[in-house]
């Protein structure tokens, strides 16, 4: 199955935008992904192992929060998207209004 890596996280996946892996559930897919790219773990999960609140995970076009969360089952033809919240990139953009 395919996992789509968003631009801000590609620095942790050797610039890969798509990662192909085998998994039966979202949990397995993220586990395999962060085993392959250990630096990604801190970006996606809290120290307690919870998915961070500003990181959303979709199976195809559906948010896993409205499926079975990390226990959501996936098929080889499914696509997982990781969608973190982003805001600008520059320091200037963070000055606020």
């Amino acid at each position, binding site marked *: 199955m395919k996992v789509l890596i968003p631009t801000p996280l590609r*620095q942790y996946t050797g610039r890969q935008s798509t990662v192909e892996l085998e998994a039966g559930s979202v949990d397995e897919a993220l586990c395999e992904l962060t085993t392959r790219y250990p630096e990604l773990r801190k970006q996606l999960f809290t120290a307690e192992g919870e998915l*961070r609140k500003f990181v*959303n995970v979709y199976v195809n*076009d559906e948010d896993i929060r409205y499926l079975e969360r990390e226990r959501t089952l996936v098929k080889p033809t499914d696509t997982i998207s990781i969608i973190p919240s982003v*805001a600008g*990139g*520059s320091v200037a953009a963070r*000055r*606020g*209004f």
Partner: protein
Amino acid sequence: MATLTRAQASALTNDEILRYSRHLIMPEVGMAGQQKLKAARVLCIGAGGLGSPLALYLAAAGVGTLGLVDFDVVDYTNLQRQIIHTTGDVGRPKLDSAAEKLTGINPFINVRKFETRLTSANALDFFRDFDIIADGTDNFPTRYLVNDACVLSGTPNVYASIFRFEGQASVFATENGPCYRCLYPEPPPPGLVPSCAEGGVLGILPGLLGVIQATEVIKLILGTGDPLIGRLLLVDALGMRFRELRLRKNADCPVCGATPTIRELIDYNEFCGIRGEEAPITTTVPEIQPVELKARLDAADDIFILDVREPHEYQICNIGGHLIPLGDLPARMNELDSSREIVAHCRSGVRSAKAVTLLRQAGFGKVKNLAGGILAWSDKVDPTLPKY
């Protein structure tokens, strides 16, 4: 929204009928739609990358009242994407520059300028006079402030955000639709927000997304088509792919859910973990001033310059330092001699401060940060060095 007086005021003059003829001859707009546009009041937050195309198209389309909130001044780095401003506008307030272009395109509209920072104290007052808010800012405190103020005032929020060559757009805070907090209940902590090393934006990207925002605003006013309610549009300009994800209204949403815990605007800088927002980033690492470094290099002191920027930044300008991007530093410390004096620098001094901390923790005792980075070097030592 259309009171009798506003409906009367939205009658079109012959000049306006001629101007809007390409709208009037299509049934999806027509006279009734054009009058709705004229009666509509839209507030654009920010007159920058997204706000430029957004406001320009809304003005051209005949949106009767266009409010703009911004307090910034046009600078040279804006011109690559903020197409409402011209080279001659550098140094002028963005609002004056933008208002001039908007009334130049369409003198029949009313442009209202709010030259201030949008805050929890003024947002609801401003929003009260508008039918739709279009959020063209790109920072978390303002994004959550705009979202909450839209939910609390019952005003739709036409949202977009951009990062490098990707963008997102949606319509939040409609009567039964989700809001931004349904999508992301909390912002990332500031440390995980990309720094200037990973930043930058393809200049046309805010053009694409700003025009998508303008399209959604017009559709909401006309009450036609399928607005981006409950859908998050993802735009990848490099692949030129558009995808959409389903968004649901979260019943437990703290602001728009069944039992909201946020009933008034809060302190959004605190919420986003930003304290003293305009305060310069203070570093506790040892520093050296550019002028002092120059004097010591001229005196042939043995100093190793370490540049922790990215290779593409090195190509823009450099002071001959040894290049190890900050992200590679942990794995490449063996290239450095801990017995030598090392001065680390980046563009403005933030990344190199992290590098100094890393190196000191690794036992490099003689590492300093170049205060203000290569920008300060350009200002204080070598003005021929380009700034970026």
